[in-house]
């Protein structure tokens, strides 16, 4: 199967067209259609899924074709960008300026990474649509919900497909908007008492927090665009090399970056570092990296399908995808920063994940942590590994969220794990799916997560062992990743055990968390404030809200969910298991899977992602152990990696089993033993409080100050007025009166000052007039004589 522009670009266009049409139809007629038209976007997404998967298959098979029988790692050369095929969209100017730096020409870029990512998005989005049909049933803004998710899907697909960074940014922002809308979905639905408050500010928080990152990305975009232009205009050689240079196209940016660095003697110019950092700012925002991660846990205020799609599988992954796109332009320094940030995020999110009780919160923090894994991987040069993990994670995390949603649905919208337990009896399918994905995320062999995580650890080892790229950074990254991986295994199985094992504690019969619930309140609502200024007091009544809410919907035992939910999670569970590793792809490795080569790594090598030259250049930043699988460095680090990841995984699982199946009394004991540390982690390191205290409060105060200034001073014609205000009360009252009459303050002042003086002269006494006149005349005469 060969890629053929005449057919396939129209198909890709269709991929974009379908959801947006669905959105428009849904907005327009949704309410009137039968079933409020949920089938409309869903079927649309089904079509999208089919197209994307079909094209992805083409890509994969293409990979194996070029791969040939003999050599394994042959670079894959397809980067299909639509402008070459004449599919392009002159954006800023239609006629006047066609191409050239002064215009933006948008098109489609379809490369291996894009191909896979597109398929992933297509699948996940479809599953979520399907799931929502069951999960959202009876919601009062049902049709709007579907409209929104389809518009979101459009944005995400567009982001993957767009061939230039500006359009990537545009779709990026639209996703932000839709995320805002969807998180806030309940915000106007009083029928969910706690959520419609939480959702309101959570959505706002998410939008604003990510927007900070977006602005950074925007500046980064400026920097690259500007300096590329300058460089191109400056040097004739570059102009020969790239006659029709489009500074926004990814392909051109990579090539140009390569040339410029080559010109610069292999050194990255400073502006590239700066731009790279700014671009990474975008990732920090969208992919919830430390310290801008704070919005993601609260994003759980949105409906579960939204959390699954946006805040697990797609949107947050977009940050990593952006890293993938920008990788060649990132100087080593930037990559170091990336590594460190990612490692920190991975570790500390995992710690929080271990102590929260809200089912979705656990998953949220695990998402942050996993994103940390990916980012670290990219930073270490494990580009393929990072992207690979992004794909596998998309599947199993989506599945986990949806299953969690199914559980919550089954347990009548309780989210606190301490009120669950033994659910596996009631919801077998859900249990199976969740278990599979948990194994995957915990990194158990034969499950997709294992391969990707293994590769990331490998990247870490390679970095550590490689004398060229050594240093403390890879070591730190490796260490924190290892610990994080263990914690991951731990808290995921903690989740499994607490939820599905033991007896059902829903109706508050015997259970041993009573005192703890009494101590910390139920979860579901986060523990911190919900309002711009301080929240703790709000926090408390939210507890009571949630409490009340929790008890309300109680009663009755859990039950398995309706078919759309089940189907959806089953599909995703299947993919979560095999996601990274189709045995069909290369049957030869059925025997010793760990040494096999997942198709993804064949597909998404730097060479295949950026084309041969750029790819080759990009790999120079990477430790040999990562990209060259035959180097002994690779082999040794591979050995270590497998060992390490297996150890941490098993350790974590065992620990979880011990604490939450064998000795269920221990957790509380430990918690009390740890004391302040426990509280610190439990309260998410107080980062929200800090943010509130350092940024939000000052801002609000500042704006109050400015408001006052504006009304008092500037308007009161500058200080003078204000001063008089205090000095002479009667004066002021006069001005006030006249102001009310309609005098403008400063005219009032003038007339007061001068008018008063003139008034003194106008006494009504004719002789005084005469005197003044004569006096004035004398002055005039004097002036005339003396001048």
């Amino acid at each position: 199967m060969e890629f053929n522009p005449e057919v396939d670009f129209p198909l890709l266009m269709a991929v974009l067209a379908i959801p947006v049409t669905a959105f428009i139809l849904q907005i327009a007629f949704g309410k009137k259609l039968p079933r409020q038209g949920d089938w409309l976007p869903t079927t649309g997404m089904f079509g999208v899924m089919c197209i994307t998967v079909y094209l992805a298959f083409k890509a994969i098979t293409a990979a194996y074709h070029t791969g040939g029988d003999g050599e394994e790692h042959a670079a894959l050369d397809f980067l299909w960008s639509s402008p070459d095929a004449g599919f392009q969209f002159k954006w800023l100017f239609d006629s006047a300026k066609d191409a050239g730096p002064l215009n933006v020409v948008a098109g489609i870029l379809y490369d291996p990474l894009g191909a896979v990512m597109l398929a992933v998005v297509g699948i996940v989005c479809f599953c979520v649509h399907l799931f929502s049909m069951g999960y959202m049933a009876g919601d009062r803004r049902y049709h709007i919900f579907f409209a929104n998710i389809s518009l979101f899907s459009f944005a995400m697909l567009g982001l993957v497909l767009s061939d230039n960074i500006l359009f990537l940014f545009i779709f990026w922002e639209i996703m932000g908007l839709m995320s805002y809308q969807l998180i806030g979905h309940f915000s106007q639905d009083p029928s969910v008492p706690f959520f419609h408050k939480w959702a309101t500010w959570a959505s706002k928080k998410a939008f604003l927090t990510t927007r900070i990152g977006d602005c950074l990305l925007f500046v980064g975009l400026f920097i690259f665009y500007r300096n590329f232009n300058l460089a191109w205009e400056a040097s004739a050689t570059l102009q020969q090399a790239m006659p029709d240079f489009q500074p926004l196209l990814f392909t051109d940016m990579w090539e140009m970056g390569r040339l410029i660095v080559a010109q610069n003697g292999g050194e990255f110019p400073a502006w590239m570092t700066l731009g790279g950092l700014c671009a990474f700012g975008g990732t920090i925002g969208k992919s919830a990296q430390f310290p801008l991660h704070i919005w993601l846990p609260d994003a759980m205020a949105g409906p579960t399908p939204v959390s699954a799609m946006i805040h697990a599988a797609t949107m947050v992954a977009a940050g990593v995808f952006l890293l993938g796109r920008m990788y060649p332009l990132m100087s080593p320094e930037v990559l170091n920063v990336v590594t460190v940030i990612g490692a920190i995020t991975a570790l500390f999110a995992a710690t929080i994940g271990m102590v929260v009780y809200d089912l979705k919160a656990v998953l949220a923090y695990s998402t942050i942590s996993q994103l940390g894994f990916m980012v670290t991987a990219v930073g270490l040069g494990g580009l393929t590994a990072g992207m690979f993990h992004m794909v596998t994670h998309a599947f199993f995390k989506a599945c986990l969220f949806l299953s969690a949603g199914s559980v919550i649905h089954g347990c009548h919208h309780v989210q606190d794990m301490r009120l669950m337990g033994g659910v596996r009896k009631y919801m077998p399918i859900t249990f199976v799916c969740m278990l599979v994905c948990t194994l995957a995320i915990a990194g158990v062999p034969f499950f997709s997560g294992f391969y990707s995580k293994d590769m990331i650890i490998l990247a870490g080892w390679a970095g550590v062992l490689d004398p060229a790229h050594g240093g403390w950074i890879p070591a730190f990254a490796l260490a924190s990743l290892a610990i994080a991986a263990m914690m991951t295994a731990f808290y995921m199985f903690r989740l499994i055990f607490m939820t599905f094992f033991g007896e059902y504690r829903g109706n508050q019969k015997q259970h041993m968390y009573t005192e703890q619930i009494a101590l910390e309140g139920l979860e579901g609502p986060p523990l911190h404030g919900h309002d711009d200024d301080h929240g703790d007091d709000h926090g408390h009544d939210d507890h009571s809200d949630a409490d009340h809410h929790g008890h309300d919907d109680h009663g009755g035992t859990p039950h398995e969910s309706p078919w759309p939910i089940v189907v959806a999670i089953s599909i995703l569970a299947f993919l979560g298991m095999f996601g990274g590793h189709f045995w069909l792809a290369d049957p030869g490795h059925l025997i010793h899977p760990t040494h096999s080569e997942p198709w993804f790594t064949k597909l998404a090598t730097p060479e295949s992602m950026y084309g041969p030259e750029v790819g080759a250049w990009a790999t120079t930043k990477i430790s040999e152990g990562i990209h060259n699988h035959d180097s002994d460095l690779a082999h040794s680090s591979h050995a270590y990696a497998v060992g390490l990841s297996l150890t941490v995984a098993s350790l974590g699982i065992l620990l979880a089993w011990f604490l939450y199946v064998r000795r269920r009394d221990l957790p509380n004991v430990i918690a009390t033993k740890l004391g302040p540390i426990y509280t610190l982690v439990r309260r998410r390191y107080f980062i929200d409080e800090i943010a509130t205290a350092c940024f939000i409060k000052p801002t609000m105060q500042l704006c109050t100050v400015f408001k006052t200034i504006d009304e008092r001073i500037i308007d009161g014609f500058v200080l003078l007025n204000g001063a008089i205000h205090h000095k002479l009360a009667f004066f002021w009252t006069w001005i006030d009166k006249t102001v009310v009459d309609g005098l403008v303050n400063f005219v009032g002042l003038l007339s007061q000052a001068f008018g008063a003086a003139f008034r003194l002269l106008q006494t009504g006494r004719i002789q005084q007039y005469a005197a003044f006149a004569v006096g004035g005349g004398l002055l005039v005469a004097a002036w005339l004589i003396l001048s």
Partner: protein
Amino acid sequence: MAEFPLLSWITFIPLIGMALLLLVPKNNKTAIKAVSLVATAIPLVLATWLYFGLFDKTTADLQWKERVDWIPLMKIQYFIGIDGLSLSLVWLTTLLLFLAVPLSFSISKTPKAFFALLLLLEVGILGVFVSQDYFLFYVFWEIMLLPMYFLIGIWGGPRREYAAIKFFLYTLAGSVLMLVAVIALRIDTGSFSIPYMMDLAGQGLLTGANLPGGGELLGMEFGTWIFWFLFVGFAIKVPVFPFHTWLPDAHVQAPTSISVILAGILLKLGGYGMIRACFPLVPETFRENCSVLAILGVISIVYGAYVALGQTDFKRMVAYSSVSHMGYVLLGFAALTEWGYYGAATQMFNHGTSSAVMFMVVGVIYDRAHHRDLNGFGGIAQVMPRYWAMTTLCFFAAMGLPGLAGFISEALTLYGAFIADDPTFKIYVFISMMGLVLTAAFLLYAIQRVFLGDLNEKYKDYKDMSGREIFCQAPLLFLCVLLGVFPYLLLDWMEPSVVQLVEFLATQG
């Protein structure tokens, strides 16, 4: 160039309409509405025709010129013409004035007078946009003030008298200084034709040599005081910090349709005046003072956003958002790069649409609740979903969300500033980015306080937007989306003029 005096027709048809209106009996409301609708619709149609049919977008020259002597003794001509810079604004004017008519159907107090003044206002505005003779320009500029004064003063809110006279005084204070500068220019060049003055300035001949004392005034160089007098005159209109304080009062007190026009067009007059009749006449001084203007612009952006964030009055908030958004225009001008000017010019248009809708939005809720206290609302979205949707759309357009019009202009402006020769502009860009976040903040904060949360019982039985209200908002919202997706619908038309202007400003004089 044009045999048929199209521009004159566009400009003066409202005047004819006004004359007809005065003949209509006072209590025949339908006839009054009909006449004013027609009188505003015809210019809109003509302007649209001009935009898409008659206008030649490949050239930067003045088109549809009309030039006849008016007051020969003073060498004053009736000289009008149009180019890429004014075309879009003319069209926007006709559109907004047309929408303002149905928007004011609810006016109960002597609608006849109201619509008559409205039409007179349109004449003034259009006149400013088309006139190429500085005297004519000034005359139209001043003609605008009177109807505005009465429109705010008679049909405004409780403190309307204060707001009206304040608006009048501020603008007049600016424009008398302008007059002084204009006279000086006239004496120096011996002509009122703005293009001619531009030519002289381009050749560096506009130096005040023909004035006593080389045109020095109050110890200022000729160029300097001319520039500042003109600039202040226009800056008050824009309004630029610290000349902005008339704006909130005028907006808060004015009736909805007038706020719409005020924010939609009158503010643009300031920006337009700068690039038409201030910078090109003293390009050198302009270049010297670019950074000052940029700083003023940035202050307006951030400061406006901050103050807006602190507001509890819905309309006041929107008013300050205008201060903030117009700051981009000034920043773009100061950048002195093509991108900056594309940005600023499109920003003028896009802010014209988005802010207009924002004021209509405020009007919608005010007509129902009869107050504008942001904290007094809540949960409105539950009863007025359509209203909520439209509001959200226009707010996001205003905060420059990609895919909507605002993004184009803000992005272009900021990039234009970013690539300015003066490196300090990069700092301004960063600060303005803060303005972006703040804008998002106060708009979302407003949405939250008005639409989300618990529904206040007393708003339970509000009706969603009526057809008339939707009719007024829909076209503008459509523009917000359309121009966000196809920005070339604006840029192509202004491109030649902008290129020429920037080239002129950057090199000449």
